[in-house]
């Protein structure tokens, strides 16, 4: 087992991809000389050269569109959009071209493209750099959406994504990059369609993904002290969503709390709650609870940002509320 940070795991994944397949190129804002907005591609330009590690002009729509074209042309491009906030400029290419071309052309072409972006809040960078839109992307048929929360997934999900014939979008939460973790380099590739139980527990299922996993795990620790055994479920993949595993787990705990940094209205947590209600209605001892961000542009000031985002104590209190016997 080797010790590395989430950032180093991403970089190792990129290096392995570039080494193992000449068709792979890395394209995006400041991925080359600058070493990547979050330093995930530091050293790759020097190792693989400007042909395969290409800094792009700040033209999100066109370099994502060019990624699509290059994939049609036989390459296996990895396009980095520095943050999900900037990807809004490329949504037309993503929805109307990447996700649509195969079906609309009657199955004539595939778009083997991987797009990586940083997502989430917590870095005191205010509203325009702190959004979480992975739930939007998970709404689009024709693409896949991955949210690696552990260092191991950050290390190995990229390889699995590159094997997909259709577009795959990887969302890396900004707060995770410095987080250390264990990786077994020999463990080899991971799947990208199953959820995983990160902590066992029989009383309630805490269902989350990406940057909120660590908060859910801490909440579970605090609840254990109150005698409540909370299970923590890492979705890992938002599309396709591993609904059968979620239903299996909730059928045993009979209670579910979904933690999602998106805004509550129309959040991805709402979709998970709806699927539990549809598939597990008679297993529930109470309504599915959701812990999401406050419906506000994420503020700059630290105390306000913390108040806006889901926190460990909010998760724990939500669970305690479910177990309190009043009325």
């Amino acid at each position: 087992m080797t010790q590395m940070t989430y950032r180093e795991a991403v970089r190792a994944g990129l290096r392995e991809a570039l080494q193992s397949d000449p068709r792979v190129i890395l394209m995006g804002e400041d991925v080359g000389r600058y070493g990547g907005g979050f330093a995930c591609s530091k050293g790759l330009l020097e190792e693989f050269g400007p042909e395969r590690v290409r800094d792009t002009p700040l033209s999100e729509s066109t370099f994502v569109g060019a990624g699509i074209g290059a994939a049609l042309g036989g390459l296996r491009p990895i396009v980095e959009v520095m943050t999900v906030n900037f990807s809004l400029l490329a949504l037309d290419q993503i929805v109307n071209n990447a996700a649509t071309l195969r079906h609309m052309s009657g199955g004539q072409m595939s778009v083997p493209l991987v797009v990586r972006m940083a997502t989430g809040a917590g870095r005191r960078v205010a509203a325009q750099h702190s959004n979480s839109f992975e739930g939007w992307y998970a709404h689009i048929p024709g693409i896949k959406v991955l949210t690696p929360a552990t260092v191991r997934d950050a290390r190995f999900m990229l390889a699995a994504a590159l094997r997909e014939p259709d577009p795959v979008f990887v969302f890396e939460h900004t707060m995770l990059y410095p987080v250390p973790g264990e990786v077994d380099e020999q463990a080899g590739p991971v799947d990208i369609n199953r959820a995983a139980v990160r902590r066992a527990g029989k009383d309630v299922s805490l269902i989350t993904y990406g940057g909120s996993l660590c908060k859910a795990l801490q909440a579970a620790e605090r609840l254990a002290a109150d005698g409540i055994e909370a299970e923590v479920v890492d979705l890992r993949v938002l599309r396709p969503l591993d609904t059968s595993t979620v239903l299996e787990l909730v059928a045993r705990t009979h209670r579910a709390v979904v933690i999602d940094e998106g805004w509550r209205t129309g959040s991805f947590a709402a979709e998970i709650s709806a699927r539990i209600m549809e598939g597990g209605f008679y297993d529930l001892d109470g309504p599915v609870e959701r812990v999401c961000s406050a419906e506000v542009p994420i503020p700059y000031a630290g105390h306000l940002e913390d108040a806006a985002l889901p926190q460990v104590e909010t998760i724990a209190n939500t669970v305690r509320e479910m177990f309190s016997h009043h009325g």
Partner: protein
Amino acid sequence: MADFVMPKLGADMSAGTLVAWHKKPGDVVRRGDIVAEVETDKGVIEVEIFTSGTIERLLIQPGESVPIGTALATVREEAAAMVGMPSATPKPPAPVKPAAPPTPPAPHVPTGEIGRVRISPSARELARKLEVDPSTVQGTGPRGAITREDIERAAAVRAAPAPAAPPLAADRLTRMRQTIAAAMTRSKREIPHYYLSTTIDMHHAMTWLTEENLKRPVTERLLYGVLLLKVVALALREVPELNAVWADGQVVTSQAIHVGVAISLRRCGLIAPALHDTDRQSLGELMGKFRDLVSRARAGSLRSSELSDPTITVTSLGEQGVETLYPIIYPPQVAIVGFGKVVERPWVADGQVVARPVITATLSADHRVSDGHRGGLFLAAVDRLLQEPSKL
């Protein structure tokens, strides 16, 4: 001969208005010539013709709006064969319900630990309130899940003696019970009842009835109940405000008199179907209809129309041994008449005390609509009419 039809000029267009003709009958036209102008939402559009030939007749005048495909003019085609104009293509098949999008796979039926009951939350809450143990209840909901109705039935069964009736009838009964409950609660809440009663000498009526039945075959025999219905109907002609309904805060008197007859069903059910135009029917006709109503009520095959529009109701519990009853008005009606049993009583007639068969008649009426004075006149009329049975 080919038709020049209103063309489809846009994705969202269903009809067009002819603005002007550019050709007249007898004009020769070539494929692509502008033949007319048509107004659409987007403005006036010059319309070309796709067949070459001569204009025969113009069928539509400027200013007329017609749906797409309507023939605007007839054209005698040029000899040259037209480039094969396709016949109508078959419409795409009515979309079979598309394969369902990959909604979440059929929910995995959890092995679930023993004792885990499939019960809806609202049913579980009701079970708690009615102290019913869900695990003893057989669920009729999806895949055996227990519903509110299952709990209600379990509670009802536990309270009432086990009726021999098959479960389906029980369902109907519960619903009937709910309907009666709702009507009675509303009546007591909304209608300010006043009650009047009077005792009536039935001697003339009963003797006339016995003689009358001797003359009639068994299939046309009368019961005294039908006399009571007829006198109530006739008395309403003298006090019409009792033959009315209360709707939207005001009284609506009814021209026709349809007396509803309360018929009790054996398992604590009750219905009050109407005998239409009671006042205008003969005793024989009334008896035939009344008999038919009762036997169909017993068999449960009453038509819903009959249940819908009595203008007043009569209920008699004589056979159950009741002397005087204080019935509750059936909303939206505004009165109800009750008759007790016929019983021999000492009665003063011409200064002498004699034994006479008597009956107690009561009226419950809506004080928003009528006052005791009018109620009294009504009962007096009933009494008077019963003294001359031959005139009924």
